[in-house]
Protein backbone atom coordinates (compact mmCIF):
# COMPACT_ATOMS: atom_id res chain seq x y z
CA UNK A 1 0.00 0.00 0.00
CA UNK A 2 1.18 3.52 -0.79
CA UNK A 3 1.77 5.96 2.09
CA UNK A 4 0.63 8.88 -0.07
CA UNK A 5 -2.41 10.71 1.37
CA UNK A 6 -5.63 9.92 -0.45
CA UNK A 7 -7.47 12.96 -1.80
CA UNK A 8 -11.07 13.77 -2.54
CA UNK A 9 -11.95 15.37 -5.86
CA UNK A 10 -12.51 18.84 -4.39
CA UNK A 11 -9.22 18.61 -2.50
CA UNK A 12 -7.43 17.86 -5.77
CA UNK A 13 -9.13 20.81 -7.46
CA UNK A 14 -8.02 23.16 -4.69
CA UNK A 15 -4.44 21.84 -4.67
CA UNK A 16 -4.19 22.24 -8.44
CA UNK A 17 -5.62 25.77 -8.25
CA UNK A 18 -3.05 26.73 -5.59
CA UNK A 19 -0.25 25.24 -7.69
CA UNK A 20 -1.43 27.21 -10.73
CA UNK A 21 -1.60 30.49 -8.78
CA UNK A 22 1.88 30.23 -7.28
CA UNK A 23 2.59 33.06 -4.82
CA UNK A 24 -0.81 34.72 -5.26
CA UNK A 25 -2.96 31.90 -3.88
CA UNK A 26 -5.42 33.14 -1.27
CA UNK A 27 -9.17 32.63 -0.77
CA UNK A 28 -10.44 34.99 -3.48
CA UNK A 29 -7.97 34.00 -6.21
CA UNK A 30 -8.35 30.28 -5.45
CA UNK A 31 -12.14 30.55 -5.81
CA UNK A 32 -11.77 32.56 -9.05
CA UNK A 33 -9.30 30.05 -10.48
CA UNK A 34 -11.69 27.20 -9.73
CA UNK A 35 -14.61 29.06 -11.34
CA UNK A 36 -12.60 29.90 -14.48
CA UNK A 37 -11.02 26.46 -14.92
CA UNK A 38 -13.87 24.17 -13.87
CA UNK A 39 -17.07 26.22 -14.31
CA UNK A 40 -17.89 25.33 -10.71
CA UNK A 41 -18.54 27.93 -8.07
CA UNK A 42 -17.61 26.45 -4.71
CA UNK A 43 -19.32 27.91 -1.66
CA UNK A 44 -17.00 29.86 0.65
CA UNK A 45 -17.87 27.44 3.46
CA UNK A 46 -16.74 24.43 1.44
CA UNK A 47 -13.59 26.22 0.29
CA UNK A 48 -12.38 27.40 3.70
CA UNK A 49 -13.15 24.16 5.53
CA UNK A 50 -11.33 22.18 2.83
CA UNK A 51 -8.33 24.54 2.98
CA UNK A 52 -8.20 24.05 6.77
CA UNK A 53 -8.43 20.28 6.33
CA UNK A 54 -5.62 20.29 3.75
CA UNK A 55 -3.48 22.28 6.16
CA UNK A 56 -4.29 19.85 9.00
CA UNK A 57 -3.14 16.99 6.74
CA UNK A 58 0.09 18.86 6.00
CA UNK A 59 -0.70 19.14 2.28
CA UNK A 60 -0.72 22.95 2.24
CA UNK A 61 0.78 25.63 4.45
CA UNK A 62 -0.59 29.10 5.00
CA UNK A 63 0.96 32.41 6.01
CA UNK A 64 -0.62 35.79 6.62
CA UNK A 65 0.34 38.71 4.36
CA UNK A 66 0.31 42.38 5.26
CA UNK A 67 -3.03 44.03 6.13
CA UNK A 68 -4.49 45.99 3.20
CA UNK A 69 -6.89 48.99 3.38
CA UNK A 70 -9.27 47.63 0.69
CA UNK A 71 -9.97 44.66 2.98
CA UNK A 72 -10.61 46.85 6.01
CA UNK A 73 -7.07 46.32 7.30
CA UNK A 74 -7.38 42.55 7.18
CA UNK A 75 -4.46 40.39 6.07
CA UNK A 76 -4.67 37.86 3.26
CA UNK A 77 -4.03 34.22 4.12
CA UNK A 78 -1.72 32.90 1.40
CA UNK A 79 -1.42 29.19 0.68
CA UNK A 80 1.27 27.07 -0.86
CA UNK A 81 1.34 23.35 -1.55
CA UNK A 82 3.88 21.34 0.45
CA UNK A 83 6.00 18.53 -1.00
CA UNK A 84 3.56 16.07 0.59
CA UNK A 85 0.69 17.87 -1.15
CA UNK A 86 2.45 17.73 -4.52
CA UNK A 87 3.08 14.01 -4.06
CA UNK A 88 -0.57 13.42 -3.12
CA UNK A 89 -1.97 15.29 -6.11
CA UNK A 90 0.53 13.67 -8.50
CA UNK A 91 -0.41 10.23 -7.19
CA UNK A 92 -4.13 10.96 -7.58
CA UNK A 93 -3.64 12.20 -11.13
CA UNK A 94 -1.56 9.13 -12.04
CA UNK A 95 -4.35 6.93 -10.72
CA UNK A 96 -6.88 8.79 -12.92
CA UNK A 97 -4.63 8.38 -15.97
CA UNK A 98 -4.19 4.67 -15.33
CA UNK A 99 -7.93 4.26 -15.02
CA UNK A 100 -8.48 6.12 -18.28
CA UNK A 101 -5.81 4.22 -20.22
CA UNK A 102 -7.34 2.31 -23.12
CA UNK A 103 -10.80 3.47 -22.14
CA UNK A 104 -13.08 5.16 -24.64
CA UNK A 105 -15.83 7.15 -23.03
CA UNK A 106 -19.01 7.07 -25.13
CA UNK A 107 -19.62 10.43 -26.83
CA UNK A 108 -16.33 11.96 -25.65
CA UNK A 109 -13.66 12.94 -28.16
CA UNK A 110 -10.15 12.15 -26.88
CA UNK A 111 -7.32 14.46 -27.98
Amino acid at each position, binding site marked *: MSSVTLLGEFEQIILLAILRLGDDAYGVTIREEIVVRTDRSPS*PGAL*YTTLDRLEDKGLVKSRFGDPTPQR*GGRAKRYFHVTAKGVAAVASAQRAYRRLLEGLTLPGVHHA
Partner: protein
Amino acid sequence: MRSARIAEWILSLATIPERAAATVGDLLEEAGSHGVVWFWTSILSTMVALLWRDVMSAPRRMTRLAVIGYLYGFLLLAAAVPLLTVVMSIGVLVATALGIIDAQHPPAFQNSSIYGLFGWVLNIIVQFVVGRWLARRSPGQELAPCMVQVILGYVVGAVVWFLWGGILGAGSSILDVSNLAFYVLADVPLWAGAITVRFARLHS
Protein backbone atom coordinates in the same frame (compact mmCIF):
# COMPACT_ATOMS: atom_id res chain seq x y z
CA MET B 1 -16.74 48.77 9.03
CA ARG B 2 -18.93 47.70 11.89
CA SER B 3 -20.75 44.84 10.12
CA ALA B 4 -17.39 43.34 9.10
CA ARG B 5 -16.35 43.30 12.75
CA ILE B 6 -19.59 41.50 13.61
CA ALA B 7 -18.88 39.01 10.82
CA GLU B 8 -15.38 38.49 12.18
CA TRP B 9 -16.82 37.91 15.65
CA ILE B 10 -19.24 35.31 14.28
CA LEU B 11 -16.52 33.38 12.46
CA SER B 12 -14.17 33.54 15.43
CA LEU B 13 -16.69 31.38 17.28
CA ALA B 14 -15.53 28.47 15.11
CA THR B 15 -11.99 29.30 14.02
CA ILE B 16 -8.96 31.22 15.29
CA PRO B 17 -9.34 35.03 15.12
CA GLU B 18 -6.55 35.49 12.51
CA ARG B 19 -8.23 33.05 10.13
CA ALA B 20 -11.62 34.63 10.81
CA ALA B 21 -10.20 38.06 9.90
CA ALA B 22 -8.60 36.77 6.69
CA THR B 23 -11.82 35.01 5.66
CA VAL B 24 -13.89 38.15 6.28
CA GLY B 25 -11.33 40.13 4.27
CA ASP B 26 -11.73 37.69 1.35
CA LEU B 27 -15.52 37.85 1.52
CA LEU B 28 -15.44 41.67 1.73
CA GLU B 29 -13.28 41.73 -1.38
CA GLU B 30 -15.81 39.57 -3.24
CA ALA B 31 -18.85 41.32 -1.78
CA GLY B 32 -18.10 44.28 -4.07
CA SER B 33 -19.36 42.25 -7.02
CA HIS B 34 -21.82 39.94 -5.23
CA GLY B 35 -23.58 42.26 -2.76
CA VAL B 36 -24.41 42.43 0.93
CA VAL B 37 -26.86 39.50 0.96
CA TRP B 38 -24.21 37.25 -0.57
CA PHE B 39 -21.69 38.47 2.04
CA TRP B 40 -23.92 37.59 5.00
CA THR B 41 -25.10 34.33 3.46
CA SER B 42 -21.45 33.40 2.95
CA ILE B 43 -20.52 34.34 6.52
CA LEU B 44 -23.33 32.22 7.97
CA SER B 45 -22.77 29.26 5.65
CA THR B 46 -19.01 29.37 6.39
CA MET B 47 -19.76 29.47 10.11
CA VAL B 48 -22.07 26.43 9.84
CA ALA B 49 -19.52 24.59 7.66
CA LEU B 50 -16.75 25.24 10.21
CA LEU B 51 -18.94 24.02 13.07
CA TRP B 52 -19.95 20.95 11.09
CA ARG B 53 -16.26 20.23 10.40
CA ASP B 54 -15.66 20.32 14.16
CA VAL B 55 -18.57 17.93 14.74
CA MET B 56 -17.36 15.51 12.06
CA SER B 57 -13.80 15.54 13.39
CA ALA B 58 -15.05 13.48 16.37
CA PRO B 59 -18.73 12.64 15.76
CA ARG B 60 -19.04 9.96 18.44
CA ARG B 61 -17.42 12.07 21.14
CA MET B 62 -19.57 15.08 20.20
CA THR B 63 -22.76 13.00 20.25
CA ARG B 64 -21.82 11.45 23.59
CA LEU B 65 -21.14 14.90 25.04
CA ALA B 66 -24.44 16.23 23.68
CA VAL B 67 -26.43 13.35 25.19
CA ILE B 68 -24.67 13.63 28.56
CA GLY B 69 -25.21 17.40 28.44
CA TYR B 70 -28.91 16.85 27.82
CA LEU B 71 -29.15 14.48 30.80
CA TYR B 72 -27.12 16.90 32.94
CA GLY B 73 -29.59 19.68 32.10
CA PHE B 74 -32.51 17.40 32.88
CA LEU B 75 -31.00 16.50 36.27
CA LEU B 76 -30.34 20.16 37.07
CA LEU B 77 -33.96 21.02 36.25
CA ALA B 78 -35.24 18.04 38.20
CA ALA B 79 -33.24 19.20 41.22
CA ALA B 80 -34.17 22.85 40.79
CA VAL B 81 -37.96 22.52 40.43
CA PRO B 82 -38.53 21.24 44.01
CA LEU B 83 -36.12 23.93 45.21
CA LEU B 84 -38.12 26.54 43.31
CA THR B 85 -41.32 25.24 44.85
CA VAL B 86 -39.83 25.47 48.36
CA VAL B 87 -38.56 29.02 47.70
CA MET B 88 -41.97 30.10 46.42
CA SER B 89 -43.74 28.45 49.36
CA ILE B 90 -41.52 30.35 51.77
CA GLY B 91 -42.25 33.50 49.76
CA VAL B 92 -46.00 32.91 50.10
CA LEU B 93 -45.65 32.26 53.85
CA VAL B 94 -43.63 35.46 54.35
CA ALA B 95 -46.06 37.47 52.20
CA THR B 96 -48.98 36.05 54.21
CA ALA B 97 -47.26 36.88 57.51
CA LEU B 98 -46.68 40.43 56.27
CA GLY B 99 -50.32 40.71 55.25
CA ILE B 100 -49.51 41.10 51.54
CA ILE B 101 -51.47 37.94 50.76
CA ASP B 102 -54.88 37.17 52.21
CA ALA B 103 -54.41 34.12 54.49
CA GLN B 104 -58.00 33.01 53.82
CA HIS B 105 -57.41 32.92 50.06
CA PRO B 106 -53.80 31.88 49.37
CA PRO B 107 -52.87 31.95 45.65
CA ALA B 108 -52.63 28.72 43.70
CA PHE B 109 -49.12 29.71 42.72
CA GLN B 110 -48.43 26.47 40.87
CA ASN B 111 -50.60 27.85 38.10
CA SER B 112 -49.61 31.46 38.48
CA SER B 113 -47.68 33.45 35.90
CA ILE B 114 -44.97 34.16 38.49
CA TYR B 115 -44.34 30.43 38.88
CA GLY B 116 -44.17 30.15 35.08
CA LEU B 117 -41.78 33.08 34.93
CA PHE B 118 -39.52 31.52 37.57
CA GLY B 119 -39.66 28.29 35.59
CA TRP B 120 -38.48 30.12 32.49
CA VAL B 121 -35.66 31.85 34.35
CA LEU B 122 -34.63 28.50 35.77
CA ASN B 123 -34.66 26.92 32.32
CA ILE B 124 -32.53 29.75 30.91
CA ILE B 125 -29.99 29.38 33.72
CA VAL B 126 -29.84 25.60 33.31
CA GLN B 127 -29.36 25.86 29.53
CA PHE B 128 -26.62 28.44 30.04
CA VAL B 129 -24.86 26.18 32.57
CA VAL B 130 -25.14 23.19 30.22
CA GLY B 131 -23.70 25.28 27.35
CA ARG B 132 -20.70 26.18 29.49
CA TRP B 133 -20.35 22.58 30.66
CA LEU B 134 -20.30 21.28 27.07
CA ALA B 135 -17.86 23.97 25.88
CA ARG B 136 -15.40 23.27 28.70
CA ARG B 137 -15.24 19.63 27.63
CA SER B 138 -14.49 20.45 24.01
CA PRO B 139 -11.49 22.81 23.95
CA GLY B 140 -10.98 24.51 20.60
CA GLN B 141 -14.35 23.24 19.39
CA GLU B 142 -16.55 24.78 22.06
CA LEU B 143 -19.72 25.19 20.01
CA ALA B 144 -19.67 21.83 18.23
CA PRO B 145 -21.33 19.73 21.00
CA CYS B 146 -23.99 22.43 21.35
CA MET B 147 -24.71 22.10 17.64
CA VAL B 148 -25.14 18.33 18.05
CA GLN B 149 -27.38 18.83 21.08
CA VAL B 150 -29.57 21.30 19.18
CA ILE B 151 -29.84 18.99 16.15
CA LEU B 152 -30.63 16.01 18.40
CA GLY B 153 -33.22 18.14 20.18
CA TYR B 154 -34.94 18.95 16.88
CA VAL B 155 -34.84 15.32 15.76
CA VAL B 156 -36.25 14.02 19.05
CA GLY B 157 -38.79 16.85 19.11
CA ALA B 158 -39.90 16.08 15.55
CA VAL B 159 -40.33 12.38 16.37
CA VAL B 160 -42.27 13.14 19.56
CA TRP B 161 -44.53 15.63 17.81
CA PHE B 162 -45.10 13.24 14.93
CA LEU B 163 -46.07 10.41 17.29
CA TRP B 164 -48.07 12.73 19.52
CA GLY B 165 -49.97 14.20 16.58
CA GLY B 166 -50.25 11.00 14.57
CA ILE B 167 -51.11 8.45 17.23
CA LEU B 168 -52.79 10.51 19.92
CA GLY B 169 -54.28 13.02 17.49
CA ALA B 170 -53.05 16.03 19.43
CA GLY B 171 -52.83 17.89 16.15
CA SER B 172 -50.16 20.41 17.07
CA SER B 173 -47.68 20.86 14.25
CA ILE B 174 -43.92 21.22 14.66
CA LEU B 175 -43.97 23.33 11.53
CA ASP B 176 -46.02 25.97 13.28
CA VAL B 177 -43.97 29.19 13.00
CA SER B 178 -44.51 30.13 16.64
CA ASN B 179 -43.34 26.66 17.73
CA LEU B 180 -40.19 26.92 15.60
CA ALA B 181 -39.44 30.41 16.93
CA PHE B 182 -39.89 29.05 20.46
CA TYR B 183 -37.42 26.21 19.82
CA VAL B 184 -34.82 28.56 18.33
CA LEU B 185 -35.14 31.05 21.20
CA ALA B 186 -35.02 28.25 23.77
CA ASP B 187 -31.54 27.30 22.48
CA VAL B 188 -30.10 30.82 22.82
CA PRO B 189 -28.92 30.39 26.47
CA LEU B 190 -27.18 27.12 25.53
CA TRP B 191 -25.21 28.87 22.76
CA ALA B 192 -24.57 31.86 25.01
CA GLY B 193 -23.03 29.63 27.69
CA ALA B 194 -20.71 27.98 25.17
CA ILE B 195 -19.77 31.36 23.63
CA THR B 196 -18.69 32.76 27.02
CA VAL B 197 -16.31 29.81 27.46
CA ARG B 198 -15.03 30.17 23.88
CA PHE B 199 -14.13 33.83 24.31
CA ALA B 200 -12.72 33.34 27.80
CA ARG B 201 -10.39 30.74 26.30
CA LEU B 202 -9.46 32.93 23.32
CA HIS B 203 -8.61 35.87 25.58
CA SER B 204 -6.74 33.87 28.22
